[in-house]
């Protein structure tokens, strides 16, 4: 359900009012910036993606029918922009030869010692293909079928990328623990 203030902002932005557009930016930019940072390798890339996301949001605002979460709508639009940016850059998924690394059980307490920024840095350090699939599956909740459609890859490839991303993250967490000890 939209708050009155949010609805007014959307209606104002629909009419092209700069103040309303600025209001929407102030409200949603932090959330969307965090989304972009997870999908992009650098902060500069993330800001480019965020800028393009808002351009698309203002352009497509007429398609939002005031039903459902506006945050969910802008977030999905932002993810799509990030995916499109990624697809433009992608030639092939990066391979890192991790197929032989066994997926080992993790100490559940290992995560509790890690801060948000460290987790984010770990995700950001993943090869681009792994990072995208891990973000879409683990955080956004996409299915492998949806990921396959969004990225133009097979479902099996999506599963494979996810497994490799998890292995890499586990490896990074272990390394981080060793350094901490």
């Amino acid at each position, binding site marked *: 359900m939209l708050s009155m203030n949010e609805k007014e902002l959307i209606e104002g932005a629909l009419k*092209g009012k*700069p103040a309303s*557009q*600025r209001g929407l*930016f102030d409200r949603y*930019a*932090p*959330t969307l*910036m*965090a989304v972009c*940072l*997870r999908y992009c390798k650098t902060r*500069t890339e993330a*800001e*480019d993606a*965020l*800028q393009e996301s*808002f*351009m698309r949001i*203002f352009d497509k605002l007429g398609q939002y029918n005031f039903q459902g979460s506006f945050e969910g709508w802008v977030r999905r639009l932002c993810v799509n922009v990030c995916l499109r940016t990624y697809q433009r850059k992608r030639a092939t998924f990066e391979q890192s030869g991790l197929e032989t690394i066994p997926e080992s059980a*993790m100490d*559940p307490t290992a*995560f509790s010692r890690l801060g*948000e920024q460290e*987790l*984010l840095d770990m*995700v950001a350090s993943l090869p681009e293909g792994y990072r995208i699939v*891990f973000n879409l*599956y*683990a*955080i956004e*909740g996409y299915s492998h079928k949806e990921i396959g459609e969004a990225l133009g890859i097979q479902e099996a490839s999506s599963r494979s990328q996810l497994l490799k991303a*998890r292995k890499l*993250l*586990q490896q990074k967490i272990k390394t981080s623990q060793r350094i901490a000890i």
Partner: protein
Amino acid sequence: MSEHPLDRIFRERLASRKAGPTDHLWAGIAAKQRAIRLRRRLMYAVAILAALCILIAGFFMVKGSVAIPTEDAPTIEQGPVSTETPRSAPLAQHIDVSSSSTNDKSSLSDDRRSASTSLASAGREVQIDNTTTTLAEQSSNLSPSLSLPQSQIPSQNFKPTPTTLSPPTPRENLQDLTAAANALDEDKYAQNKIIESDLQDIELVESGYELSLRDDLFESAGRLSRSKSDRMLIGEDYVFSTKAEHAIKPTRLKNRFELELTVGPAYSNQILKASSELFREDLDAREISEFPHLSYSGVVRLKYRLANGFSLTGGVGYTAIRNRLEYEMPVPNEDPELIERTNALRLIEIPLMLGYEFPGEKVKLGISAGPVVNLSTQADGAYLSAETQMPVGFEEGGVYDQNAGLAWRFNLSASYPLGRGGTRLLVEPTFSHYPRSFTQDSYPISERYWVAGLQVGIRKLLR
């Protein structure tokens, strides 16, 4: 399916995370939004103007071509009519134009061409009877003039008597005169076409009508020219007649050139692109600091009319592509001051256009397209440096090329006659695309444009 613990931890920690974007990000978005709003407004304005041009043209076309219906259209008959015939009764008119030698302008030639037009009062069924010889056949050796049978030619001192017949309104008589005018035009005569637009104006002269034919009908678009005067007298009996000294003789097309002069405002859309991601910041600095400004252009063209409505046009044009540069100048102990200045790219160009003008009434619509050769480009202004956030003059940076290469232009045009001297008012929506970058290859940001504008000017038939 149970969620993988790793996925759950990352989702819980990162899904609702927020991060602040840098301060200048909104400035970039706002700048792009301003440009979009400006572009939309201009597009609406151009669309409205184009629609108005089409509506006006359509109005004149419809106005000029719709026949007035009548309930009791009479039988069409040839032959002169009595001057006693009242306009309210079915009226048959005989329009007879014959050719004869210029040595004997007042005599009636045997090889005459007659255009017989019988008209009902308002039913307006028009027939043109083409008889033995065409004008073209005669023109080579006779140098003929068109004249009337002696009996039908008014004397030099011809003064229609108002009492013999109450004159019809100019509008009613227009089609009669149209038929007569068409009888004089070889092509249209052969095609049996009645085109009212060939008559530019009708003035009531006592009980007769003085008819003025549009100049370019005879002297450019058509096949005939008038020897002395552009006026012919329509007598009280509605017989289309010419005075001897106003005789019309067939000739070949002589004046094919028209001079056009147009000026007008334009909107220039700047397209910046970085040669690589390394120059992203330079690109951003320019995109957030440069905005479209009112541009303008003007051109002097010479148009050469080919057959069937086609034409070739060449000329010299000047285009000023302008942008507004905005940046903040730091002021000690105060808020920074917003500085605005105008950047301009000044182009001297040669347009080479192939055009086509649709047949029409007073308002004529046309299209033309072709390359525009850039003779010289001069850039004045500055751009914002990403490093210092201060302006750098174009001349310091070695940014712009001296020549922008080839552009492509597309014009729509609508013209309307101004008076009787072969001058027309010209309104011309125009669109140009400059596919080559205005910047030098060594400069990492390419700069291209498309320009949309509305030109207004005049077109003058050269004699």
